[in-house]
């Protein structure tokens, strides 16, 4: 049973076809990666999953419900490429705001904010204005806001871009923990060594999925020594039927 399913999704902006006949099925509990260079359509694809964009043709379903669906949105956490926070408010005010938008009851909100701040290691900074935060702190805040409501599905657009290796490792630890607790995670990346940490991958190029499978499968099928080589291979030869 797929948790997230895209069937023959095509997206056209004016005359430009940004996504071409994309089909994906992501089972619950998986850590799924969308790998591709910038401009390949990764962000458009996840916005389609979230219902923030409508497919020109095809369908995007979460738990068999066509997106956008307010019911499904309750179970999704989304961390966009931009931090998308209110810089003129404190971290606590931001988190309390998102908690109330997610409909967390007032009695639970304060405790949840403390919990989540501890998880992303921002407890000491809760009452500071975001305008004073560093880039890495803002990324962690953004992740915290997406995790506020114990989402069943976490969608992350380039979660580790522009942050230092230590922080990147800590975010990956958090993601693995969440996955162990049963959260389905979809993330986009253009970094090969991050892609290797995913259970399964879809390689995206010019709006088309050129291959999908586990990192090991993709490498062995293309007789490559690295994902990077595999990506180049599929870009030239296309994938075999078995893989797509």
């Amino acid at each position, binding site marked *: 049973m797929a948790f997230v399913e895209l069937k023959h999704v095509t997206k056209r902006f004016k005359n430009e076809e940004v996504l071409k006949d994309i089909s994906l099925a992501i089972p619950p509990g998986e850590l799924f990666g969308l790998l591709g260079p910038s401009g390949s359509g990764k962000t458009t694809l996840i916005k389609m999953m979230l219902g923030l964009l409508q497919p020109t043709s095809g369908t995007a379903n979460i738990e068999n419900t066509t997106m956008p669906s307010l019911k499904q949105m309750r179970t999704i956490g989304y961390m966009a490429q931009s931090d998308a926070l209110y810089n003129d408010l404190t971290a606590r005010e931001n988190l309390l705001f998102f908690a109330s*938008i997610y409909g967390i009851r007032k009695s639970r909100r304060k405790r949840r904010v403390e919990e989540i701040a501890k998880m992303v290691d921002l407890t000491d900074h809760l009452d500071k204005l975001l305008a004073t935060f560093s880039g890495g702190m803002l990324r962690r805040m953004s992740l915290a806001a997406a995790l506020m409501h114990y989402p069943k599905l976490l969608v992350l657009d380039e979660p580790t871009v522009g942050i230092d290796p230590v922080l990147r490792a800590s975010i990956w630890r958090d993601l693995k923990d969440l996955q162990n607790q049963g959260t389905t995670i979809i993330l986009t990346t253009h970094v090969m060594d991050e892609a290797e940490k995913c259970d399964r991958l879809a390689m995206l190029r010019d709006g088309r999925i050129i291959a999908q499978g586990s990192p090991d499968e993709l490498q062995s099928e293309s007789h490559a020594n690295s994902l990077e080589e595999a990506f180049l291979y599929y870009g030239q030869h296309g994938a075999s039927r078995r893989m797509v």
Partner: protein
Amino acid sequence: MRIWAIAKRIMQQMVRDKRSMALLFIAPLFIMTLLWLVFDGGDYEPAIAVSDLPAPFEKALEKQDVHLESMTPQQAHQALENQEVDAFVFEKNRHIHMTVEGSDATATGAVKNALIQASEELAPKKQALDVAYLYGSDDLNMFDNIGSALIAFFVFFFTFLISGISFLRERTQGTLERLLAMPVKRYEIVAGYFLGFGIFVVVQSVLVVLYAVLVLDIYMVGQLWEVLIVAILLAFSALGLGTLLSTFANNEFQVMQFIPIVVVPQIFFVGLFHFGYDWLEKIGKIMPLHYGADALKEIMIRNRPLTDIWIDLTVIAGLAIVFLLLNVVALKKYRKL
């Protein structure tokens, strides 16, 4: 309660944004004071150079609000050239002649006025004229006359500006997208904004009206609460229009571009000017400011009760509602549901 959560967040942001608060609350009062000083500060007192005037005429002229200086014609022409005097008055062949500097219409008008008054004094008209005022009074000055339109304009303009830019920021900083990926309905976002800003806008309207009436002592015979209701309704329509139009702007500068297109032309339809063309007057009927200024004038100068201006009130409130509903629809651009 998501609407309240959004409203509360906007209030937190506003309170922290001292500059926006100042723009909303202090700027209208400041500009109104300047206009008051211009229009209420008495008439312009022209400086007139005179040379060899008949004594009775010079005496009559002295009684007007003018500043007279005796000069030779050569001196006078030099003074005119240097803009030290506004006019040169002299007698030639039993006629009074006047040369005006001419580049300042206000000064020219004041000089002409003084000369007419002076000649009338020498040869009074036979027919005396008593003027009775149905509304207003003979000390209703320019500021009293345009004051109601000014209140309408400032309430409208500053509300439009602040709400437009704030709603835009929601989009450019990416938080609108984050919100729309959350279980929040489009109408809840619009309503949250309306409520959050609504409180500041009400405070602003009250401040502007009280300042105009109590401090600047603008002519006002109507009920204060009625004026407040009109001002607040008008501010709501500006709030609706500001947030609606910001949906079609991609950055702060594009919001500013709406000002000369949407806000400034409305000044011409608030009753300050009279057009010679009927079709132009009709264009005003689609502008919220036209109704706001009209309603305020009816209350402040003519003491009409709200029931007499229900058309104005309905149009303003109706426009506010239409703008808000259109905004809910316009947000479909970002999420279909």
